[in-house]
């Protein structure tokens, strides 16, 4: 009886402290939002040239860059995810040779900067041909796609490997004990589950891929950042084109996360939906705290 009251009162104390922490957090987050919002309004009202912002010349140039980036993203995305599946399978291969090659590939492309890889492909590779013989007249975009694919293939490969590792061993055993070959068991039983396990991490990586296209400005791909640099140096006005840049990247990345959310919902089978509900509940709770940290 005594312990019951005790635990009850201490529980109340914890609850009070929790509420206080929460309230402080809300105030801090609110102040932060106000400060950022104020700064933003000030920038938008004093720094942005709205005539320039809406001029068809700028709009057309950003639109061209935007569609080029979308094309590069779609192709590199499809290629890097396909490559990543192969790399993930290589990492779990029973063949020592395949496993080591996959591991070496991941270590190299995850361990060196994407910019370095782009330089190797864009500047280095054409020099391996005798002068003038290089088969691509415009190498920038192919080099960009190859670089993004190889770089992000390594990350996707690790996500897939993690997803495979997270599938309980009993799944493989059950499939094999029904007479399935290892390859069949992987295809029918293990990989579909691994895919779902890896989906969030893959989606995360593909959003990073979108933002990584901004590096392509240094290998002369006329993408969004190149348009910004051009306008900025001609007009000496950074803020106006920056508004365009921000909106365009967010448009791509936010559609991408919608797509990933949709894929995650589609592969949510059975009673796990309840767990997912709980997790997303936790997630929205976490957002409040995120404001304080930012």
């Amino acid at each position, binding site marked *: 009886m005594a312990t019951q009251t005790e635990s009850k009162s201490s529980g109340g104390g914890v609850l009070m402290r929790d509420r206080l922490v929460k309230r402080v957090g809300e105030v801090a987050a609110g102040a932060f939002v106000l400060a950022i919002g104020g700064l933003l309004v000030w920038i938008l009202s004093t720094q942005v040239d709205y005539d320039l912002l809406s001029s068809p010349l700028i709009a057309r140039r950003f639109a061209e860059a935007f569609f080029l980036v979308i094309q590069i993203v779609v192709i590199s995305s499809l290629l890097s995810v396909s490559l990543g599946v192969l790399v993930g399978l290589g990492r779990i291969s029973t063949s020592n040779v395949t496993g080591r090659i996959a591991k070496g590939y991941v270590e190299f492309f995850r361990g060196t900067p994407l910019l370095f890889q782009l330089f190797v492909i864009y500047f280095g590779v054409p020099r391996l041909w005798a002068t003038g013989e290089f088969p691509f007249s415009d190498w920038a975009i192919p080099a960009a796609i190859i670089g993004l694919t190889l770089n992000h293939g390594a990350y996707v490969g690790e996500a897939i490997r993690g997803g495979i590792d997270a599938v*309980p061993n*009993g*799944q493989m*055993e*059950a*499939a*094999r*004990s*029904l*007479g*399935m*070959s290892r390859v*069949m068991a992987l295809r*029918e*039983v293990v990989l*579909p*589950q691994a895919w*779902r396990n890896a989906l969030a991490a893959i989606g995360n990586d593909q959003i990073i891929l979108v933002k990584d296209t901004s590096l392509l400005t240094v290998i002369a791909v006329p993408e969004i950042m190149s348009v910004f640099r051009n306008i900025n140096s001609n007009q000496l006005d950074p803020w106006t084109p920056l508004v365009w840049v921000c909106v365009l990247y967010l448009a791509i990345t936010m559609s991408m996360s919608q797509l990933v959310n949709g894929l995650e919902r589609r*592969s949510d*089978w*059975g*009673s*796990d939906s309840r767990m997912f509900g709980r997790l997303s509940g936790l997630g929205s709770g976490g957002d409040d705290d995120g404001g304080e940290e930012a």
Partner: protein
Amino acid sequence: MTGPLVQFDGVDKSFGDTQVLYDVDVDVDEGEVVVVIGPSGSGKSTLLRCANRLEEIQGGDIRLDGRSVIETDINAIRQQIGMVFQSFNLFPHKTALENVALAPEKVKGAPEAEAKRAAADLLDRVGLADQAESHPGALSGGQQQRVAIARALAMEPRVMLFDEVTSALDPELVGEVLDVIEGLAADGMTMVLVTHEMGFAREVGDRIVLMADGRVVERTETRSFFDEPSTERGQQFLSRLL
């Protein structure tokens, strides 16, 4: 075929330096239900897992219908040996019906409609016709284990292995699974069961194999084992239970 359907012949099994099975001989006749009992760590489950080569043996031989499982194609031999696991291991991304129909479709190449129809019949047999479209995550442990039994039966195996299939279940769910196994026994299915359910062992088993420390210590008719075990080990084991 006059010999036993399944024959463990002097089986030795080690994990690294640790030997877990010593010269194990067990014969299982067609239509017979052999129950393997013994304290934890005595090698019961390992013995089952050796039969369909989830574990490789280091000595002796295991024969199915006179053919060595070691020398036969592993995927072919596994089709003839159904296995049910303690932790069900249903495929969570497939419905109950798809779980049962998958292997006949992919391994035996049965047409989809036919595999699905056979799967529906099997789910009916384990009392789950109404759960055909449910995913495993939506089923109770007892229901999942019954789907797992249907899944193993779908390959029309010659023998079924049950590896402590009720150990992971809540007590009130054990009965429904045991009922299904009893039904199989009544239909004449050859079975090897590892179990801790002594009452059930007594009811459904034709013969009892008592294992301890990786060896078979007693091998006898069920009735005589429970009435008066012939070995001291058997008497000890029973006295601790009763």
